[in-house]
């Protein structure tokens, strides 16, 4: 094993094997807690040994192992690595300057920007500043789809080796100044990063997940800082900003000047049984106009129900996707490539997918899985691509729900603010 691969890492290593020279050896337990994830749920092995169940998905950490790390030395080539030649709008540029100023002043920050506000490009000057000054930077998202979408854009923008990290990937880990990955991967780092940018910080699975929150803090250097990105800040984040623990920036206009589509609400308690005539007509029209569409459903069991309903209309090709679908990534890529006309999905695709002319239907919008944030994000998906700002979002619910009301109100509010700001 290369020494470099341990820089700022938390690497599981068998207790009975010789340790790499210069590595610090940490025990796998801190009291009754797993050092890597902080979890307490354990399973027994013979002879009194045990392993952590809370982070088993990232490989077993047992009492037969130790954890190795080498203090992050920031062993990077100095100088700017920015290749990107694009331009920011006046407002984006002003904001990106403020991001750098606050980072220089060692502040944690929260950037509140609606979907489609051109967030990623706005980060380039900040990332460039950090890389130029020899910092190690992580750009993280809770979702693999988003990581896979961001990675090529960042790799094109910066001339620096970038390690991309997510669960299903097979590539061998290499030390890199810029890391792009899922939040879960931070469980494998230890005081590594000077700057951590966390996208969609209010999205499942990050929200209210103490293990992941702890992992982020463990991966950050003691003197490092966070930049959180969100389209729908939680009350917790906003109150942190109020207390001065975070510097809050707002960017509420959409990149293309378009608005978030409002929800068109239909009450239909029998949506699982059959499709209303008006919905059938909308789907047929979209297909006729060659507009791709998503149908969001609350539960995995609903996928087949809806698929059957849509198939009866004979409107092109589609498929279903759910969170643990092993072909999830390839199906989304196929949709993007135009191989599918529609996708029926659980909430998992609500973020990060950019498709021109996209339309959406939300079935069972009153289901508790669809939080206010989720509904706004789903709406934000529609017409997200720059060249086609108009889209429709049809919401079918068994009855009224607070989340729907709040989402609708917030969409109108955001649109109003965006208009004032332009």
């Amino acid at each position, binding site marked *: 094993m290369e020494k470099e691969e341990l820089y700022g890492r938390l690497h599981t290593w*068998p207790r*009975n094997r010789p340790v790499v020279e210069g590595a610090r050896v940490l025990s796998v337990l801190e009291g009754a807690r797993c050092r890597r994830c902080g979890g307490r749920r354990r*399973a027994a*092995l*013979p002879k009194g040994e045990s392993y952590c169940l809370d982070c088993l998905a990232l490989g*077993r950490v*047992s009492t037969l192992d130790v954890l190795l790390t080498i203090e992050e030395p920031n062993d990077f080539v100095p100088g700017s690595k920015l290749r990107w030649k694009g331009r920011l709008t006046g407002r984006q540029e002003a904001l990106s300057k403020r991001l750098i100023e606050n980072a220089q002043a060692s502040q944690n920050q929260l950037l509140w920007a609606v979907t489609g506000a051109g967030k990623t490009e706005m980060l380039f000057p900040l990332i460039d500043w950090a890389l130029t000054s020899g910092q190690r930077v992580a750009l993280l998202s809770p979702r693999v789809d988003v990581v896979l979408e961001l990675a090529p854009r960042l790799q094109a923008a910066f001339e620096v080796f970038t390690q991309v990290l997510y669960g299903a990937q097979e590539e061998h880990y290499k030390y890199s100044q810029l890391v792009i990955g899922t939040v879960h991967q931070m469980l494998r780092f230890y005081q590594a990063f000077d700057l951590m940018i966390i996208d969609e910080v209010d999205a499942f699975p990050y929200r209210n997940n103490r293990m992941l929150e702890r992992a982020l803090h463990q991966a950050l250097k003691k003197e490092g800082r966070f930049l959180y990105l969100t389209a729908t800040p939680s009350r917790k984040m906003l109150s942190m900003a109020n207390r001065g623990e975070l510097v809050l920036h707002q960017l509420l206009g959409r990149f293309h000047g378009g608005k978030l589509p409002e929800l068109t609400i239909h009450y239909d308690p029998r949506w699982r049984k059959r499709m209303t005539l008006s919905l059938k007509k909308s789907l047929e029209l979209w297909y006729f106009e060659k507009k791709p569409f998503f149908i969001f459903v609350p539960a995995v069991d609903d996928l087949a129900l809806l698929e059957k309903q849509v198939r009866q209309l004979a409107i092109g090709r589609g498929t279903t996707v759910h969170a643990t679908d092993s072909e999830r990534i390839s199906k989304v890529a196929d949709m993007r490539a135009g191989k599918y006309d529609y996708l029926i999905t659980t909430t998992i695709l609500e973020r990060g997918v950019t498709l021109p002319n996209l339309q959406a239907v939300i079935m069972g919008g009153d289901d508790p899985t669809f939080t206010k944030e989720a509904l706004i994000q789903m709406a934000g998906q529609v017409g997200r691509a720059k060249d086609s700002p108009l889209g429709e979002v049809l919401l079918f619910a068994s009855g009224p729900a607070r989340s729907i009301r709040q989402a609708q109100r917030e969409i109108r509010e955001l649109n109003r603010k965006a208009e004032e700001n332009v």
Partner: protein
Amino acid sequence: MFECLLCSKKIDVRPNLLLLLTGYVPVRDRLCDACWQTFKEIGPSFCPGCGRTEKKKRYCLDCRKWQKRGMAMIENRALYQYNEEMKDYMARYKFIGDYRLAPIFAGKMRKVIRRRVKEEKIDLILPIPLSEERIAQRGFNQVDAFLPVFAKKVDLLAVKASHKVDQSSKSRSERLRTKQPFELKEGMKEEVSGKHVLLVDDVYTTGRTLYHAAQLLRQAGARKVSSQTLAR
């Protein structure tokens, strides 16, 4: 609340006294129905050499290759087909080392081994050993859970110290070419002489491992060597 050990789907376990008192969850409730159904049993007809599902009861291509090389055939029997789901199970149980998966097929394996011991007049049960180093890292030998509690088990074989490379990290042809990885433990020759030995392993892939062990035992005077695996 209980979750399927393989797919994490929630499972309704009917509350009963044993569960309330000891927290014991019956093995069948540790996986969801969908996961149970993905495992396909061998049969009804299978290769008499390696035990894989075959249309007719005759030696499969792999086994005929062993025959051509002049090897004495071992009678392997397996419970399940080595399909993707079984591979995934093995990966989690062995390679990730999730020891909670040990009981899933342990009952069935013990039962079939007890039956074979009786019907085939088997004298000794011999689990395929792991190297000391691997045992120390994994914390268990995955085969141990499959052995009947009260049967006569012997620790005859050891993995040679020089043989450290993990079988699964090699290609099929590499595995077929490997040299004898086992050696008979000291003073064990008398134990084997004239006996019918049943080797137990988790999976029969190329058969190389089992043939190596069988060869060693025959050289030591075993009357007959058969084997039992969970998957083929």
